[in-house]
């Protein structure tokens, strides 16, 4: 992989005033001395995974209406972050996602049915974190930042070449754990990358009530963590800055804080009513900055994406959605006896008694 940034930029604590970008909202390339455009094969892969990821997201939202999922927090509009960050990771790296990052999980290769187990209600987590190097989706805010720092520091102590990428939202930057994690990561020079997806709202609370610093990226400065502000709807730029931060971390350069400016097109979840706190004009303006349209426009203008490939990718997305429907429409059977199995390595005497009681009730 070619280097994606220039050395001069690497360890500056302060983010740039304007978000870094490589593509304008209409898909024209931007010449930015700070960043290098990813290779064509990477851009095509970004496009393919974003189209598939968006279709997954739409399908998951539909599954809530059919009662197959208890709830689904959509990441529609945030595909550049969800996909760009994951593709920038290497196989040996770890991802620490939140509840809104299901698209990141499927992009990482976690099967859809395992990704959606939490939201389907069969169990609190459906996949083996060690198999995919993906931590359980975190529902409490910002607590995963510390887990990522700990895992990364342990990797460093063991001499492993592993970087941890932790995803949080704008609201989570107000939680104390974010600040403790930035400080621990800096003091330990842990190989960790913090990606804040600033999608404008913490459920209903806008950025103006969350923060008055010049940017969320500025919060890294006080901890000595180099910080980057990036256009979160620009998949090329997102991939480039995360890839660069991962490389720096792997080379012993310590943590990076990245704030990606993006937008949550859907409500917080299907149970939320976004019209109560934002108006349609604002949403329309952001739809005009769509990350999928942007990379499509660029690749089309470059002659890399023609109608045939576009149709192939669309067909793949539809086939994937059909497979998601199929697995999620199957009824889930969870053995109630399992409730007692994983609380401790071996069930305690008390839990064995309670398991027997439940078994008797069910007999």
């Amino acid at each position: 992989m070619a280097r994606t940034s220039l050395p001069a930029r690497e360890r500056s604590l302060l983010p740039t005033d304007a978000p870094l970008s490589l593509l304008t909202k209409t898909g024209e390339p931007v010449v930015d001395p700070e960043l290098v455009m990813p290779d064509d094969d990477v851009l095509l892969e970004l496009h393919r995974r974003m189209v598939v990821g968006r279709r997954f997201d739409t399908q998951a939202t539909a599954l809530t209406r059919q009662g197959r999922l208890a709830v689904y927090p959509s990441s529609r509009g945030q595909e550049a972050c969800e996909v760009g960050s994951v593709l920038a990771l290497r196989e040996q790296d770890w991802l620490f996602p939140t509840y809104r990052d299901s698209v990141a999980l499927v992009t990482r290769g976690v099967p859809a049915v395992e990704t959606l187990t939490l939201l389907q209600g069969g169990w609190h987590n459906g996949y083996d974190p060690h198999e995919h190097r993906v931590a359980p989706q975190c529902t409490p805010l910002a607590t995963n930042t510390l887990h990522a720092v700990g895992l990364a520091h342990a990797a460093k102590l063991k001499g492993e070449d592993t970087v941890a990428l932790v995803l949080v939202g704008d609201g989570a930057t107000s939680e104390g754990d974010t600040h403790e994690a930035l400080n621990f990561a800096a003091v330990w020079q842990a190989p960790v990358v913090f990606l804040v997806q600033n999608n404008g709202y913490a459920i209903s609370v806008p950025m103006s009530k969350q923060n008055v610093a010049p940017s969320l990226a500025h919060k890294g400065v006080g901890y000595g963590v180099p910080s980057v502000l990036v256009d979160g709807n620009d998949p090329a730029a997102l991939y480039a800055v995360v890839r660069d931060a991962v490389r720096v971390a792997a080379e012993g350069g310590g943590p990076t804080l990245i704030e990606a400016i993006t937008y949550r097109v859907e409500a917080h979840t299907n149970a939320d009513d976004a019209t109560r706190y934002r108006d349609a004009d604002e949403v329309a303006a952001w739809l005009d900055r769509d990350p999928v349209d942007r990379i499509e426009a660029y690749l089309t203008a470059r002659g890399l994406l023609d109608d045939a490939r576009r149709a192939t990718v669309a067909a793949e997305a539809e086939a994937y959605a059909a497979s998601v429907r199929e697995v999620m429409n199957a009824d889930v059977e969870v053995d109630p006896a399992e409730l007692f199995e994983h609380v401790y390595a071996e069930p305690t005497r008390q839990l064995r008694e309670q398991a027997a009681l439940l078994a008797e009730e069910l007999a």
Partner: protein
Amino acid sequence: MSTLSMSGALNMALADALEADERVLVFGEDVGPLGGVFRITDGLAARFGDRRVFDTPLAESGIVGTAIGMAMNGMRPVVEMQFDAFAYPAFEQITSHLAKMRNRTRGKVEVPVVIRIPYGGGIGGVEHHCDSSEAYYTHTSGLRVVTPGTPQDGYDLLRDAIDSPDPVIFLEPKRRYWSKGEVVADQRRTGFDRALIRRPGEDVTLIAYGPMVATALETAEAAKEEGWDVEVVDLRSLSPFDDETVCGSVRRTGRAVVVHEAAGFGGYGAEVVARVTERCFHHLHAPVLRVTGFDIPYPPPKLEEHFLPGVDRILDTIGRLQWDDEVRGA
């Protein structure tokens, strides 16, 4: 065998665990060159190096949260919270993540973290340095909660805790740090989650743990003058609870008193009383009583003697166990 204080036994347990398993890490506030404010980690940083025994930034949620991440990556962290009340900033990490990670992931992710917490009063400590916080942790499924009452158990239980695949809240009775006793290393005779009968007796069972074990034994001696033969059970493991040993004792004696420093209302003793009553009802000659701290914030040093359960208060409580109603041998 050697004579050690509880703090010395804890130090030896940490050293032996660090020696036995290179995945063991010891970290927290002031645990490095200083050796901890109670000197429990004395000499460990010098002996094992600052990659295995190290000071962290002063943030308890950070310490526990990063310990969880390290455990996910194969380490066995042993972290120190400097005092009971200073562990509260870590509460979310402990209850929502440490305790639940195995269950959430259906057993796929183990987090064998030990959190050492000096707890309880009796040392003239100022505000926020004397809490008995055990009930917060015992109420949380997925945690083991243990507390030693003797130097030998300081060693044994800490080694067991570090070896355990489950997360363990290890509560150290700080007023007993300097109490001495015989300690044998590497000879753990009692199961990790078993209670112990510290002193056999026939008339009444005193159920105690941590700092109150010594007080209960002292009470048992004093009770001889009153004609009561007191059995003392040291719980050791607060969660899981050893119903077998405790109820076996109460069925023999027919009377029981639970003693702890923590406030009584909603306290750990209420669970013990309920379990004993549910299981031993037909063997009881009197209601199971409690001697606990009052339902007040921990008092200032000059008043703590009135708060802490002592021999006299425990003897008075034993005296209220309806002895007059009993027809001996009937």
